[in-house]
């Protein structure tokens, strides 16, 4: 079972009251939850159109890359479900453990060039940035950086 920072606070406070610092952190998070929920709603609603747009754009930009099937576009868009969960919980470890580690292993096993996946995510990022409202994009951005980092340094190193 993965714990988030919030569950860690709850367990740490066993047999005592939450302290002021813990309460402040929770309240600060709660104030951002409506925006996080909005992101989750927008991602869910836009899944089909994002998949279509991503597939079309990948084919247009990289006509030689046969890897870029509709299925791959769908998988990448569906990976946003892990992003959404991590953003909603405000804990990027959820994204790392539930998606990034799995993706690294899968790409290494299939001998896929991680840069191709990084390129596809870059296109997806552009599409999202155009379609999401600014406040929603801001809560998504840290998760996106985590994804970017794993696809550049970490993933490339791991697959060599």
């Amino acid at each position, binding site marked *: 079972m993965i714990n988030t920072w919030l569950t860690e606070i*709850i367990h740490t406070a*066993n047999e005592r009251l939450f302290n002021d610092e813990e309460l402040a952190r929770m309240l600060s998070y*709660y104030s951002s939850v*409506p925006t996080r929920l909005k992101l*989750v*709603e927008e991602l*869910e609603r836009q899944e089909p159109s994002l998949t279509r747009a991503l597939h079309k754009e990948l084919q247009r930009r990289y006509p030689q890359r046969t890897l870029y099937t509709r299925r791959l576009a769908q998988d990448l868009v569906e990976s946003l479900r892990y992003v959404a969960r991590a953003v909603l919980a405000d804990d990027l470890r959820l994204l790392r453990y539930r998606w990034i580690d799995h993706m690294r292993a899968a790409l290494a096993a299939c001998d896929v060039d991680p840069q191709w996946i990084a390129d596809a995510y870059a296109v997806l990022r552009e599409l999202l940035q155009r379609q999401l409202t600014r406040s929603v994009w801001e809560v998504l951005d840290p998760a996106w950086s985590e994804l970017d980092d794993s696809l550049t340094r970490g993933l490339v190193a791991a697959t060599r």
Partner: protein
Amino acid sequence: MLARLTLEYRTPYPTSDDRQQIENYLATVRARRNAFEEIRRVVVAVIDRLIERMRQAYPEFARYHGHGFEKGHRDLVLLTQMAANAMFLGEYQTLDEMFTEWYRTIIKASHLSPTFVRDALAVWREELQAALSDEAYALLRPVADHLAEYLTRIPVPPKDETGKRLPVPPRR
């Protein structure tokens, strides 16, 4: 509630029910924070009064448990603090996993009768209700009711170690 929900939803995205639960909870957070503060202020005084009334209702208790009321005071402060945390979080499943079952085991191991525990928790709720604002107690009540029900679900011990029971004195 949010801690559990963000980890445990099994659908690709949280359902509309999940989202509604979160929104309902968020709408009460400010009141929960205020109630938490009220509980923090009154907890020791509430337990002081509870122990005093229980001493009068169970005058022989100390014969069986030398420092029973002192330990009971400590444990009931603890219980109240855990209840306050659960109230703030808007759920008591985590409280049960971390604390309540363990606490019930301690009660059983101390050979306390269900009647004794029921009396103590009835006084606990009564004193809390009297010490807190109506709004604060309304938020705490689901947790307090749950704890009172859960912790009194214990067998009658083979040897009751609470002694003679007199009527629990009314609140002063």
